[in-house]
Structure formats: C-alpha cells, structure tokens
C-alpha cells in the first residue's frame, strides 16, 4: 500500500502505487519507476522480480520520474464501462527517464485535430472519487482517491 497523506479526518490515497503524494506542504506529487541497475531499463510497477530486457535478477532501484513528458499516441474513447464519463482521451506519454505511462490526457478537446503527436505535457493530480472508511481506531474518515493526469504544457 502506498503512503497516504492525511489532513484531519480527510485522508488522500493515490489511485495507484506509482503515484506518490506529498507528505509536507513544500512537496509535490510525483510518479515513481523502477530501474535495472545493470542495463538501465525502466519499468512502471513495484515488486518486479527482475529485468525483462537484460534478464538481470538484481533488485531494481526506485527512481522519481519527471513530471513533464511528450505525447506519443492516443485514442479517443467514446464507449466504456458503466460509470466512466466519455468521451475522453486515453494517451501514452513518454517520460524523459525512458519509460512510458498510460493516462488520461486532460484539459484538451477530445478532437484529433487538436491533439498533436509529440506535444509537451505535464502531470497534474486531481481527486477522482471519495468514500467514507473507518480507520484502525474505528473513527470514520473521508478517503479521497487521487489520480494523476497529463495536460498540455507550454514548453
């Protein structure tokens, strides 16, 4: 379970382990990857047994990923499972550390004419859902689920 950030009776929880939320006001959320210490290949997702590129089984090193990347490709999803608002842009974003992430591209019209290959994008986080949960002491808390998105950036 990834670290949660708490403020009083409201607790923020990342939607996925790869997203790290700030634990102090001076920090910003960031994504993490895992880098092979032999060949440098970088992966998303903790708990890897080894490197599927070079076959090393030495432990991979967690690294902080940059918040800016470039749009590789996308699709505009018009039909989804119940509860998912459509249309939205599903995108593959290349990060400078040599790894790609799948995400929703936000703050852009879901229109192929408006979406440019290679366009610079930057990560933002937003609350996507919330629920009530009782903590270990039996006290009810509000859990905010925080997700990351990428949006067009100016540079």
């Amino acid at each position: 379970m990834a670290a949660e950030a708490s403020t009083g009776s409201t607790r923020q929880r990342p939607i996925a382990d790869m997203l790290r939320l700030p634990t102090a006001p001076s920090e910003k959320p960031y994504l993490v990857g895992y880098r092979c210490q032999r060949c440098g290949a970088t992966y998303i997702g903790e708990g890897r047994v080894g490197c599927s590129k070079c076959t090393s089984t030495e432990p991979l090193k967690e690294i902080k990923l940059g918040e800016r990347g470039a749009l590789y490709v996308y699709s505009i999803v018009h039909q989804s499972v119940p509860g998912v608002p459509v249309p939205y842009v599903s995108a593959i974003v290349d990060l400078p550390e040599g790894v790609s992430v799948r995400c929703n591209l936000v703050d852009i019209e879901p229109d192929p004419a408006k979406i440019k290959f290679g366009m610079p994008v930057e990560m933002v986080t937003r609350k996507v859902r919330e629920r009530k949960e009782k903590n270990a002491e039996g006290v009810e808390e509000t859990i905010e689920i925080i997700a990351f998105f990428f949006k067009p950036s100016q540079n």
Partner: protein
Amino acid sequence: MRDVYVLGVGMIKFGRYPDKDVPQLGADAAVLALKDAGVSIKDIEMFVCGNLFQANAMNAQRILQQIGQTGIPALNVSNACATGSTAFREAYIGVASGMYDVTMAVGVEQMGKMGLLGGGARSGGESVEGVLGSGLMPAVFGQAGVEHMRKYGTTAEQFAKVSVKNHKHSVHNPLSQYQVEVKLEDVMKARMVAYPNTLYMCCPTGDGAAAAILVSADKMKQYTSKPVKVAASVLTSDPYTDRDLTMPDVNTLTKNAAKQAYEKAGLGPKDLSLVELHDCFATAELLHYDNLGLCPEGEAGRMIDEGRTALSGDIPVNASGGLLSKGHPLGATGVANIYEIVTQLRGQAGTRQVQGAKVGLAHVIGLGSACTINILTV
C-alpha cells in the same frame, strides 16, 4: 521433425447459441472434422481443446464425453485470442514430434453478448479504467492504429476501408456471423467506439467452434491424394520493446513469427495466395500488412487503397470476412482461420474462392501477447 498434414476440418456457423454449451459446440465442430477427414474418433490419438473463458472447465474431456471416451491424452490450452491456433500447434507438435500419427484440435468459445473486453485493471482495489487511460481492447487497438498514423501518415479512412472489404467478403461465407455489406460512408459515420475505430471497425462477440485433424505423411496417404501440408507452424511471445508493457506491441512478435514461418516454409510473402489475419479491429489489419511483409513497411494504407487485398486483388486478405464480420469467438478463431485456408486450398470456397490458391497464411494475435502463424500449402 516430421511433415504434418491437415486431413480434415470442420466449423459451425459463428453466431449465438444460447441453448448450447461449450462442449456441445466443440463436439459439433469435431464431428464435422471427423466426417470431412473420413476417420473415426477411435483413430484420434491425442486431443487438444482451445477455450479461453472456461479454461478451467476441462472442455477437451467434456467434448470426448460427448463423442467418444477413448481414453486418449486430452489437454486444454488458453492463450488469449491465439488460444485456438495454439491448440492447433500443440496438435501439430504431437504429429511432428513422431509421438502420434493422428491428432485433433478443437477451438471453441461461447461469449454471448459479452461487452467490451479487457480493461478492468485495478490497483489495490481501485478501478483505474477510464482514469489512467484505457485498457479496453477498442482503445488499445485504437492507439496501435494511431501509432501507424503517426509513423506513416495512414488515415482513418484507410482503416475504415478494411471494414468495407471484409464485410463484402463475408457475404460469400455462409458460416460468417454477419453477411452484410457496409458502405465506406456508413463505416465512417457509424458511432465512434475508440478513435479511429467506429462500431463497424470492431469485431463482434459471439459463439463458435472449429476443428482440425492432423496426420503424418503415412496416414495422409491412406486417406487422401490431395493433401494440405503444414509448411510452418510458429508461436512467438512479445519480446522486450520499449513501450510494450504500457502499450502492447502487437507488431514485433508478428514480425518475428513471420520471419520464422517464412524461413521454415522456404517461402516468402510473394508466394502467398491468400492470408487470414487477425483483424480484431480494422486498425490491426493494416498494421499486419506491414508486419507480414505483404507490402514494404508503412505502405499498408496504399495497399488497401489500391484494392490489392480484396478478393479481386493480387493477395486477398480475410476472404472469409475476417474477425470483423465472420466473428471472433476467441478460442475458435485460430482454428477457424485454418478451416478457411484449407477450404480455399482445396478449391471448395464457392463464390469467395481465391482462384488457383496454393499457399495460405493464417495469423493470430493474442494480446498479452502471443502470436501464431501457420503456413499451409498444396
């Protein structure tokens, strides 16, 4: 390894069979293949069933419980959309290895009106579908098509033409789930599912089954003077490529499989009379023109524009109607492709017959990923 031949094939019409179950559908196809081959279930020495959604249900044995409990080795395989073709390859290996002289593969699936496949990814209990992009198949293959657009300038209209072509072919296939033509304008204006794939550019869900009987050269000579030979049967998995684990790379493992299959068969793309390839979405078909070497890399859009892959073209692709119209009951698909190639090579394909067909290639991709290529010759 020994030479292997396809002695018989069978296939039921793809569609919806709510009153039957998976073993019954598989048994129906198996009986058709036995009849076609002119052999009895008592002649089968090893039996493989490919089925995905009930992979834990012992369907190989349950089919034999319908048509003949002879006590032979029976096994069940699943390999995503390449499930049926993997079952075929297991049966092929059984004969090629010298262990058996007569083997049978059945591919079967009952999907009913199952909705969008894939997605459903969860992270620590949280659903991420539609929040961290889409893992649903229409978006995955939409993105794969958009990558082809980015690299080569392929257009949404060129992808749409695949749907027009394959639906047109399916009108001539009585076993196709759908047998209706669609106009380019209708495909382009249809409801968008995941750009650039509209509704008619996505294969349907459905039920179906197909079967094939494989034999050694000696057995083949006892039963037929017009053998169909398995010139190559190849299976690959996805090798490491930069984005594969984020955005499934359906190209590299197909290219690898094609290279191995052409080498094994001693043939090349120019020798092919017809191709049945994995058009789960219209975008996928054009990618595989490049991947199978049917055209120089990046020229798939031009190839469909020029009509070269239509029944009337120089290398017909998906004469059966393809997954887009014939249907795609996942476990059945790989064996149904073999059925189509065998039918064509025997000259029994009726109004969709590719004249003078001598060499056919069947290609299947299972996302996750598995790729099979079988090359059959007469």
